[in-house]
């Protein structure tokens, strides 16, 4: 069953379309990365998934049920951390959880469980105003986990964290589907961040969905190429063209054979050496996922790019 399903989800603000007919399909269990540059419409989408704002068009289904009709029941199965955590600085970490526990009417033991998951048991008695950013973020995650949700929606949970905090948060998120069977919907503007923990991703840009699928599907879009470093650039370029290679001048002074295979690399090397041109670098590589992501999000969204 799909944990999240949206149908032509749309939201407009004044004259701007923030979310434009987005059709998300988030499978249950695992981590789903929701990627896009800042201002792409990620937070607006998340606020609609949580019923915080009403869509101007389309619908949201969580676990197969319509959100607008069953919001209260569905929200019992959802935990969320939207942007920065919402905490009461004058209360301790434990007291912050107690406020939410009272609102949920949940069992008292869930507080210890949530503190344990985010490893905050030791600091639970300290006022939140004394917490570091990383601790506040973990407490925010504990608030989201308090009611033992089936779906956890996290909006840029590593924002503002130092490398150690990012590593800790990433480790925590990775554990959730494995140890607790939770579906994690994680938004980020960093592919490198999502790439390490998500198995499914969606890329959104200017409110429109550009890609949705397994991370491996995106990897399949990676193009191979061969980069060659030579002693005589001009001669090598002409020589390879004569040998019917598709060759381009690279940005770093090297020659690039787009779409080339291992056999192409061997053959090109042989041709160049035969002509007396020195080859000091020969590498077969793929375009990085980051390059694909940037290429997608640097161009205007068009209908035919969406999968």
């Amino acid at each position: 069953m799909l944990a999240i399903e949206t149908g032509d989800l749309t939201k407009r603000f004044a004259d701007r379309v923030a979310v434009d007919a987005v059709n998300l399909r988030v499978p249950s269990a695992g981590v789903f990365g929701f990627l896009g540059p800042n201002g792409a419409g990620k937070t607006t989408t998340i606020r609609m998934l949580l019923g915080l704002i009403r869509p101007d068009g389309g619908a949201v289904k969580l676990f197969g049920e319509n959100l607008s009709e069953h919001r209260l029941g569905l929200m019992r199965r959802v935990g969320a951390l939207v942007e920065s955590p919402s905490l009461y600085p004058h209360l301790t970490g434990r007291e912050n959880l107690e406020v939410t526990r009272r609102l949920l009417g949940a069992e008292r033991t869930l507080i210890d469980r949530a503190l344990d998951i985010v490893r905050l048991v030791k600091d639970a008695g300290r006022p939140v105003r004394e917490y570091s950013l990383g601790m506040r973020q973990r407490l925010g995650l504990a608030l989201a986990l308090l009611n033992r949700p089936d779906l956890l929606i996290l909006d840029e949970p590593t924002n503002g964290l130092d490398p150690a905090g990012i590593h800790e948060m990433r480790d925590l998120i990775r554990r959730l589907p494995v140890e607790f069977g939770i579906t994690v919907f994680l938004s980020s503007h960093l592919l490198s961040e999502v790439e390490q923990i998500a198995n499914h991703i969606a890329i959104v840009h200017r409110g429109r969905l550009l890609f949705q699928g397994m991370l491996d599907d995106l990897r399949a879009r990676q193009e191979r190429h061969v980069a060659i470093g030579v002693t005589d650039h001009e001669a090598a370029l002409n020589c390879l063209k004569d040998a019917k290679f598709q060759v381009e001048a690279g940005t770093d002074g090297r020659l690039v054979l787009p779409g080339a295979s291992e056999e192409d690399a061997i053959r090109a090397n042989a041709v160049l050496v035969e002509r007396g041109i020195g080859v000091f670098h020969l590498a077969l590589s793929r375009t990085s996922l980051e390059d694909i992501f940037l290429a997608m999000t640097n161009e205007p969204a068009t209908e035919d790019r969406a999968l």
Partner: protein
Amino acid sequence: MNSLLRALHAEVFKLRRTLAFRMVFVTPALVALLQFFIGLNQRKGAPTAGQLRETVFQNILSVWAIFMLPLFITLETALLTGIEHGERQWKHLLALPLPRHVYFLAKFVVAALLAGAGTLVLCVYALVVGFVLVRTSAGLPPGPPPEFGQLFLSGLKVWVAAWLIVAIHSWVSLRWSSFTLALGTGVGGTFFALFAASAKIGKYYPWLLPVNALNLVGGEPRDRLALLLGGLGGALVVALGSLEFSRKDGDEPQTSVSRRFVVGAVAVGLAVAVLAMFLQSRR
């Protein structure tokens, strides 16, 4: 009902270590202390100790009702909602499985309870001030016995009549995150009350209802109308406010007042004033 109780349970818990809770004891103390020092000077002119005590009771309650309670409500409602606006709590609270209107109702109920607690503390302080003044006025004849029941009954009436102000302030401070706007509404409302007190229209003015409940201004009994307007008006504003809060799209309060709202508010205010003048002229 269950979700409202849960929200109230959480609201009360949030008061821990807050200024809002401490002010319940501090604000009435300011009034009581002021009247204590005034009472020290009144001891010589008082015919009996009992009359001195009654005068002190009345003075403490009237200063509270006309001036300090409306400002206290302004501060309390702004502080209560400020803890939600400050750390952008609404995106967390409104994503929980509770109907939106319970947050509005819970804020109103807690603000009303704090106003009631402040008034109760004031009555206790009044008893202490009265007791100390009488004990330190050795030469005065005893006079009538203290009317404790009357003091607390008057306090109760002041509190009920203040519900409309609590409701108005709950709505203003929940709708707009601006502390300045909440404070401006309270100070403006209280300041205008000083001018409206003796006018006939003063019996309908929300910020005068607590003092009207004591029958101290206007020259005619106003207590019943004050209780009716305070109680029912408060309930009406709470009903409308919670309806608006639950229908609102979004999780962020407004930070400033829109021009359209100002024009609308001025138009409604003018319409009410014209209607009031028309009703007055027909009498």
